């Protein structure tokens, strides 16, 4: 094979390889957040039985084996939501030292966050839906999720283990689930 022809083949192979590599690289970068979120959601949903249900950390301090670089000073309540089954309601009482409710769409973006000072009341009642089809009679704050699935995290700043019983009581007052029941 003439040298010139071989060089053209080599150049074509390099162009095809580089183009393929760049396309795959960008696809990986764009999709990694969704893959990570899927893992988190599956873990929170316990393999599928606990979608739209809240789970709570019940111990004070670092809990090993959780998500990377979590904050051990916050005791959290988490919920993986799937709004294909209808809107989800989250209600309960805030926590005095610091409380926030944050929502993450399926690419890990934190599209909504509110803290206790912004809420101005000691109780909260939110409805999360994928569209705007929420009963107007509901006297709650309505949040529209950009994606059908996502994650909710409630953080409470707990100053010491002395506050643990009060935090557990606060967690027990929460409702997470279908819009049709609960307070």
């Amino acid at each position: 094979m003439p040298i010139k022809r071989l060089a053209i083949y080599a150049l074509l192979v390099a162009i095809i390889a580089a183009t393929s590599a760049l396309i795959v690289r960008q696809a990986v970068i764009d999709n990694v957040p969704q893959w990570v979120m899927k893992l988190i959601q599956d873990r929170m949903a316990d393999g599928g039985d606990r979608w739209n249900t809240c789970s709570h950390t019940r111990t004070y301090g670092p809990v090993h084996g959780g998500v990377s670089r979590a904050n051990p000073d916050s005791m959290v309540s988490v919920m993986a939501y799937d709004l294909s089954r209808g809107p989800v309601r989250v209600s309960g009482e805030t926590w005095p030292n610091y409380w926030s409710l944050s929502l993450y769409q399926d690419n890990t973006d934190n599209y909504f966050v509110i803290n206790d000072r912004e809420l101005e009341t000691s109780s909260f009642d939110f409805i999360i839906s994928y569209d705007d089809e929420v009963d107007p009679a509901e006297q709650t704050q309505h949040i529209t999720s950009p994606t059908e699935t996502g994650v909710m995290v409630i953080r409470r700043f707990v100053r010491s283990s002395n506050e643990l019983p009060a935090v557990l009581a606060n967690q027990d007052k929460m409702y997470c689930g279908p819009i049709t029941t609960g307070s």
Partner: protein
Amino acid sequence: MKPYKTGLATLGGVVVVILVASILSFRLTMVWLQDSDGIFDEFYTTQTQWRYSDEVGALDAAPVARARVAIGGPLGLSSKEVIYFITTEDTDGERLVSGCDYQMSGRDIDSRWWSITLYDSTTSNYVPNIDNRSSWHSEALPFNRSNEWSLIISPDQKPSPWLPSQTGASTPFDLVLRLYNPSAQTRADVPDITLPIIEKISCR
């Protein structure tokens, strides 16, 4: 060789090239994204060893920043709520490792509350220790009359306030400083606020 056979061979070659390049690219991109310190590459530098980010959880985060934060520290709060500072180095610019003891000191930071957390850089997670402590927060740290505080980072138990690092072979760790609901002044001054300094005491 007949023309159609030549065509098939060429097509097969192209498919092989695409497959090999794609598999290699997938693996290399994942390794690059999962690099233990990779999450910090997308953070802004400051005048000190600390880096900070306002892209954690942000809707307009750059794709690489979003991917790296998703791997290294998912479910962070947006900068509306929290400002994150991270360091992997001491004040001399040397990598933080568990084979050395450090003194960390600073002043109170004007925010609702703040915390410093130590993570094993190889696992991106907490370090097991007898105190079950991975952090100190602004309500627990003892401040002196000048509103200053200091703590010791070491794998060996120290008088309080002690922040335990990894025991055994020397391995890298990182520190995350979180400012919850920073004041308007703090927010305006970031990143030029007085951040903690981390001085090496000794190494084993």
